[in-house]
């Protein structure tokens, strides 16, 4: 009897310990915030937010944003930043329309165009990465400049044609697989970051570049690679946006740079580099997606949505900074 009491006491103690650990763990806090958010939004919108079409809508929105956010995570882990993601995605999106306008392409050719889009994204990422790693230019300015350049070229290419429909069965199929692609990217990123030398090097470079270099990590190569990956994922996300919208337009990619940075901030990633997790960013992306969607459903004006998004970013980073103290 006494033994049983002891055992149950120890179980209770263990549970409390686990609960404490969970609450201290950032991602658990984010999960709780997420659950509360879903519940509150469902009540406010009288269940509209949890209807099947809306959930589907949110799922597709967060998938395209999420893929680019994973790229942003890798860059920020090395203490960099990639403001060019929106420009890169827009450029790829617009190019797809420019390539296909007025022409009929067999499915294989469309596949080729999609690959070219992703390659262009990777190429722009390489320019970012080389400037930051070889020339030692500040990431902020490099990617800011590249953002304007890619956006400018996109504007130039679009001209007066605001929207170019791109239709191909392969795109429609691809569009349906958007969430699956997102999940694949998450799993791959998780595995790479946690179970490979490259992944550990990314954390090491962001945490302390000098000691990383002294311990034999090729810092320049790691920095170059994360920008490459970010460009690649921005290109991939533009392909999926194309698949979903079936049209190439200058607004299609939206303010991807802001959304990805916001998601990363909410996800508890340190902007000073070296600290942050894939799961955190995924939770950040979902939270941001749900808030965006809720503001739309409630009918908040676009301008106020911007204000709220900005406040959320500041709040998230402030909470993170205070917690670190």
């Amino acid at each position: 009897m006494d033994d049983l009491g002891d055992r149950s006491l120890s179980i209770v103690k263990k549970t409390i310990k686990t609960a404490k650990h969970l609450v201290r763990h950032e991602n658990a806090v984010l999960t709780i915030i997420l659950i509360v958010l879903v519940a509150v939004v469902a009540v406010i919108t009288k269940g509209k937010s949890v209807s099947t079409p809306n959930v589907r809508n949110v799922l597709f929105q967060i998938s395209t944003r999420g893929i680019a956010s994973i790229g942003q995570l890798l860059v920020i882990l090395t203490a960099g930043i990639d403001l060019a993601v929106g420009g890169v995605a827009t450029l790829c999106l617009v190019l797809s329309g420019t390539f296909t306008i007025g022409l009929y392409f067999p499915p294989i050719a469309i596949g080729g165009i999609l690959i070219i889009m992703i390659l262009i994204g990777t190429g722009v990422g390489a320019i970012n990465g080389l400037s930051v790693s070889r020339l030692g230019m500040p990431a902020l300015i490099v990617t800011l400049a590249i953002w304007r350049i890619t956006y400018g070229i996109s504007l130039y290419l679009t001209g007066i044609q605001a929207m170019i429909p791109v239709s191909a069965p392969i795109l429609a199929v691809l569009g349906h697989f958007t969430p699956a692609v997102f999940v694949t990217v998450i799993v791959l990123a998780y595995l790479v970051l946690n179970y490979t030398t490259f992944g550990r090097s990314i954390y090491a470079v962001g945490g302390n570049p000098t000691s990383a270099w002294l311990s034999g990590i090729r810092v320049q190569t790691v920095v170059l690679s994360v920008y490459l990956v970010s460009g690649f994922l921005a290109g991939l996300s533009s392909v999926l946006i194309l698949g979903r919208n079936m049209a190439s337009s200058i607004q299609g990619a939206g303010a991807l740079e802001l959304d990805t940075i916001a998601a990363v901030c909410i996800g508890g990633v340190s902007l000073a580099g070296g600290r942050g997790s894939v799961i955190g960013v995924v939770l950040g992306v979902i939270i941001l997606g749900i808030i965006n969607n809720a503001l739309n459903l409630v009918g908040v004006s676009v301008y106020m949505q911007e204000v709220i998004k900005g406040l959320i970013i500041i709040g998230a980073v402030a909470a993170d900074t205070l917690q670190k103290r």
Partner: protein
Amino acid sequence: MSRTTQETKALHPQSVVKRIFKTENSVLLFILIGIIAALAGMTRGVSVTRDNVSSIMLRSSTIGIASIGQLFVVLTSGIDISVGGIAAVSMCLGGMLITGPEAGVPGALNQVTIPVGAGVLVLLIFGMGIGAANGLLVSRLLMPPLIVTLAMWIITRGGATAITHGALVNNIPESLLAIGQGKIIGIPIPFIIFILVAGVAYFILNHTSFGKSVYATGGNPVTSWLSGIRTSRIKLSVYIISGLLAALSGALIMARSNVAAAIAVGSLELDTVAAVCIGGVSLFGGRGSLFGVVLGVLILSIISNGMNVMALGPASQETVRGIIIFTAVAIDQIRKREP
């Protein structure tokens, strides 16, 4: 010792020329003269007509005033992405208050009308207030300046459009237009204000202990703190200065164009960052001169104006501007590597 040798050497005409070439600002000056000559040739003299020169002055004055604020922030190794947003939101608030019901914009702000002077004062104080919010978040909470001001940019830009409900506020009073569009001995008044602001900033940066502390804080915050400089207060002040100057720039845009609206500001944050980069200011803080930034502003404005005169579309302008920023920073970075 080395200083004396330098001074004796300076007496020889050859080394004077060498020194001029070595100083960053003189290189910029040569670039500026080269660009003016090239553009004058390409536009067949249109770019140097009196009308066009005064339009360059108008353009450079608003970019220039905000860029001086940006310089203060960048010298402390910070960055202020929110200048465009601050200019927009202060301008819209001030414009709404000054014009009152005549603005033709719905909302509660519509019911209030205050005198022009008071309106401008409110506008400037509001800009300082947002700058102070940036500064407090950066200096007290130690949040990264990039994210704070990026978020503030989103907030203020959204706020500006929300204040005016997306409409353009017209009917700016004559007294303001007289400042924005007026000229004294052929020089636009905004440009004179820009030169005045530059003069005050030059004095502060080079001849006051506050100015020296700004450089020190950016150069090495720990040493500065150890040598008794209140680095967090310095950081707070530079963001307030940047907010004030951004709001002033917004007021001048309103006075010049007879419109208060978020879109009237354009991409001020990009222009100021570009001007500071071209001016040879180090983005890691502690290095850069006011004169360099003024030259950067002039180079940027003349190039933008040249593209307008040559009727290049906004798309090409955007691309060229990006390439200019990229090249300026790349050159700066490569030059720094050489011993």
